[in-house]
């Protein structure tokens, strides 16, 4: 009774949690469009659009995605067969165990007339599925602790999910093994299903079960041929209907044999009952926490994959985009594939800002959306976001189908708006002359005493003849109708400032900040002036000197 209450309580918590998570899809305001609609409007838009998608040909696209990407895990298979085995083992192992084992009373008992958990194939299946989960868990543990990027960022949830699953499976195997050897249980079964009190017959059955089912009795029964023969006959008459050979329990049986020496103590303690509680409550716990951590991906990933299968055209309405993004946040399993392939991972190792990596950034973006970030963390997220080159690899590889690139542009826009645009943004707030004043008034940090490689060496510029070749070939200049208005100065004019030793004026020039480092200027310069290198170095120096002028402490 207690356990049943626990199960229903867990279910209630789970359902409430799922509703709470789903509420976030509408209430998370991510991206500039989020300001244009209220959560209510977003809900209306989604639920009015839903029938149009579900009752159209698009449903086939969704169906295909669910088959290939959810059921068969196509994306993971393409990326790594080992990871696919890991995920299939855990996913199908757990789900099948729920169907054929946890819910056997509700499902199998109705479907199969002579169902019994101790019969084959159920006995065998339980062992098979349990070991599949264990193989998956083992791969997951090894992966989590040996892949360079992953082992640096294991979260509580990454570990918790593995621990909970391991507890459930191990306690289940332990439960089966202790039940197998339990003499008390044997006696209960004899009493319940046979009811004989013929000592001679019971001894014969004991003999047979001790030999064939590995039950350990306090007084070992005789194992001679006549007892065994009688026992086999009795077993066939009274027990075989529900009990298949335990040889099918290829995981629990070896364990049972291993703990045989302890059998008497275990039986006295009724450890099988304890394990039963333990196993049951661990499963309830898993059900209860499902919506609150990474286990939620059971729901959110199929949803995300279904939505992304519809392509970018769907969900482009300003009301829909924040919903898609919030669903994307929920669909992240922290699998780390994005970070393993992120093109700026090397930078993350150098400047030790984890929010450069997509798998870590997404969690911070979630907190940003829920307004849970401190100033310090906003600053770090802003730095991490700026380091992204928008190469799009993370979006391409995400097995959950999250449009990460879109999330980044939305969160970067949110950061910019909330006052964390990074140096590129701050520099635009004031004019070239104002920045030069700040440099003189020491609002900026003083220039480094080390002479920078290019800008600290007059030989860099001496050959410049101000011929404008760099300006003529510059694609940034070409993109502007009015370079003076948009860029303050052209590349050749910045070089002239450097020749005149007016570096302070050059620091704030938008040309310096808008340079795309295509190096055309440098390649075309007839005098060999390293124009692009100079612009790059100026930007680096300005970043360094801007540092104290930027709010980033709590």
């Amino acid at each position, binding site marked *: 009774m207690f356990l049943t209450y626990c199960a229903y309580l867990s279910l209630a918590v789970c359902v409430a949690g799922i509703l709470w998570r789903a509420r976030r899809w509408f209430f998370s305001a991510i991206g500039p469009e989020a300001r244009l609609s209220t959560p209510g409007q977003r809900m209306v838009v989604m639920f009015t659009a839903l029938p149009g998608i579900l009752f159209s040909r698009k449903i086939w696209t969704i169906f295909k995605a669910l088959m290939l990407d959810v059921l068969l895990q196509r994306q993971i298979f393409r990326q790594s067969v080992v990871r696919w085995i890991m995920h299939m083992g855990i996913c199908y192992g757990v789900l099948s165990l729920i169907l054929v084992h946890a819910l056997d009373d509700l499902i199998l008992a109705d479907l199969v007339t002579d169902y019994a958990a101790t019969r084959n194939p159920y006995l065998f299946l339980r062992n098979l599925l349990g070991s599949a989960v264990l193989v998956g868990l083992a791969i997951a543990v090894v992966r989590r602790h040996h892949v360079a990027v992953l082992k640096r960022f294991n979260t509580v949830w990454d570990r918790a999910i593995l621990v909970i699953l391991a507890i459930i499976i191990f306690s289940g195997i332990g439960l089966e093994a202790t039940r197998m050897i339990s003499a008390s249980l044997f006696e209960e079964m004899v009493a319940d299903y046979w009811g004989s009190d013929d000592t001679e017959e019971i001894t014969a059955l004991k003999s047979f079960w001790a030999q064939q089912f590995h039950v350990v009795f306090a007084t070992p029964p005789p194992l001679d041929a006549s007892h065994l023969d009688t026992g086999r006959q009795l077993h066939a008459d009274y027990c075989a209907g529900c009990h298949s050979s335990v040889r099918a329990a290829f995981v629990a049986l070896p364990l049972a044999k291993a703990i045989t020496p302890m059998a008497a103590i275990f039986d006295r303690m009724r450890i099988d009952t304890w394990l039963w509680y333990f196993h049951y409550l661990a499963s309830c716990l898993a059900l209860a926490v499902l919506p609150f951590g990474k286990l939620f991906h059971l729901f959110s990933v199929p949803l995300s994959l279904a939505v992304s299968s519809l392509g970018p055209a769907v969900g482009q309405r300003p009301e829909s985009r924040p919903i898609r993004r919030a669903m994307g946040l929920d669909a992240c399993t922290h699998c780390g594939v994005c970070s393993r392939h992120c093109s700026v991972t090397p930078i993350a190792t150098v400047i030790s800002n984890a929010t450069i990596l997509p798998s870590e950034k997404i969690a911070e973006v979630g907190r940003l959306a829920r307004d849970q970030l401190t100033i310090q963390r906003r600053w770090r997220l802003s730095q991490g976001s700026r380091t992204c080159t928008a190469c799009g690899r993370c979006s391409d590889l995400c097995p959950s189908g999250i449009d990460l690139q879109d999330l980044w542009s939305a969160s970067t826009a949110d950061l910019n708006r909330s006052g964390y645009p990074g140096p590129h943004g701050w520099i635009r707030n004031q004019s070239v002359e104002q920045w030069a004043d700040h440099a003189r008034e020491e609002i900026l940090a003083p220039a480094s005493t080390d002479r920078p490689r290019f800008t600290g060496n007059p030989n860099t510029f001496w050959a410049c003849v101000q011929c404008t*070749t760099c300006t003529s070939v510059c694609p940034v200049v070409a993109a502007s109708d009015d370079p003076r208005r948009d860029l303050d100065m*052209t590349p050749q004019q910045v070089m002239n400032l450097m020749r005149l030793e007016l570096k302070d004026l050059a620091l704030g020039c938008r040309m310096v900040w808008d340079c795309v480092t295509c190096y055309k200027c440098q390649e075309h310069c*007839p005098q060999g002036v390293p124009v692009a290198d100079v612009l790059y170095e100026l930007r680096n120096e300005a970043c360094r000197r801007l540092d104290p002028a930027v709010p980033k402490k709590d």
Partner: protein
Amino acid sequence: MKQIDTEIMVIGSGMAGMAAALFSAQRGIETVQVGITGEINFASGLLDLLGVHPVSDGTRWQDPWAAIGQLVSDEPRHPYGRLSVDQVRTAMDQCLAFLETAGLPYQTNGHQNAKIVTPAGTVKTTFGVPRSMFAGVTVLAEKTPTLLVDFEGLRGFSARQIAQTLGPVWPTLKVARIAFPGAGGELLAEHAARALDVQIHRSSLADAIQPLVGSCRAVGLPAVLGIYRTAEILADLESRLGVPVFEVPTMLPAVTGLRLREAFEQQLPRLGVRAFYQQKVMEAEVLSDGSFRFLVGNEDAQICVRAQRTIMASGRFFGKGLRADRIGIRETIFNLPVHQPAERTLWHNKDLLHPDGHPINRAGLSVDSRFRPTDAGGKVIHDNLYAAGSILAHQDWMRQKCGSGLAIATAYGALSQMK
């Protein structure tokens, strides 16, 4: 490293290097050409042959061939003195014929020099004129009523300044300043030229000029009428405006120089030249059999070239063929002896605008009759090493107005006298 064997190595991608590679390829000789962006980007597009002699009194010549004869008799060491007038004529004809096929047609004033307006409003004596500019020669000669248009934001080109300077001799020259379609602020010639390669900008430009033409019978524009389709753009504008349209040279680096560079860079490889533009010779070595070995690259050496003969067309100071430091003037690739004033104090006259120019302007490589560099005693340094173009000594191409002619003719001379 990639290894290339060739008969001729041309060092330099300026006018002389391009001409040398052209003549070499036209003769069916295996040719490799190496050179960084150099002086050709700063070419005005006008091909001078010989405009001024002697420079001390600035005498301008209508007949360049007679001028060459006079120059050679006055200054026998001038590189033109190593060539016959026929050779110079053939070289120019071949080069102009090539440019015609390359889509950059030129026109000459018969066998005479032409006079053309510069962006400063002065009149320059030159020989080969891009066809897109030639109507300007005619209207200047005939003082035809002409509208000269300039663009807001285009630096170094003021129609008013030109008209003011030329006013006394050309009173019917009218001027106008318009905004270039789709631009504001500073206008860069190259950007304007690329914009006009697009039809829509051409029609709005014509629409802006149309109401200003009035009674003028020609329209002059800064030389920004496209890079690859100048003839088409010109014809388009002429049909829209109903009068001849011509280009006026602009300040450097100009689109006209870019057109020259593009014509050569695109056509020479088609003629069989193995060209490595934007690359330079990083190491040079003369081998015992008289051939050469070069390491070529940009930041790092990437190609090794072995050549039977080498033509140095590496230019002067801006082209990086010569380098002046506190000790003297050096030749940068083989460290060849450079004809130069005895000491640094003698490089320049005290007067910056001295009519004779400065001795440093005539420094460079002395060559024998076959354009092989020689030492001070006149002895040939390497049998298979030749030099052409502005790196040669005993000339002052800027003041003499003979830059292109010198480059083309000496390249031709070096090649035609190879054995």
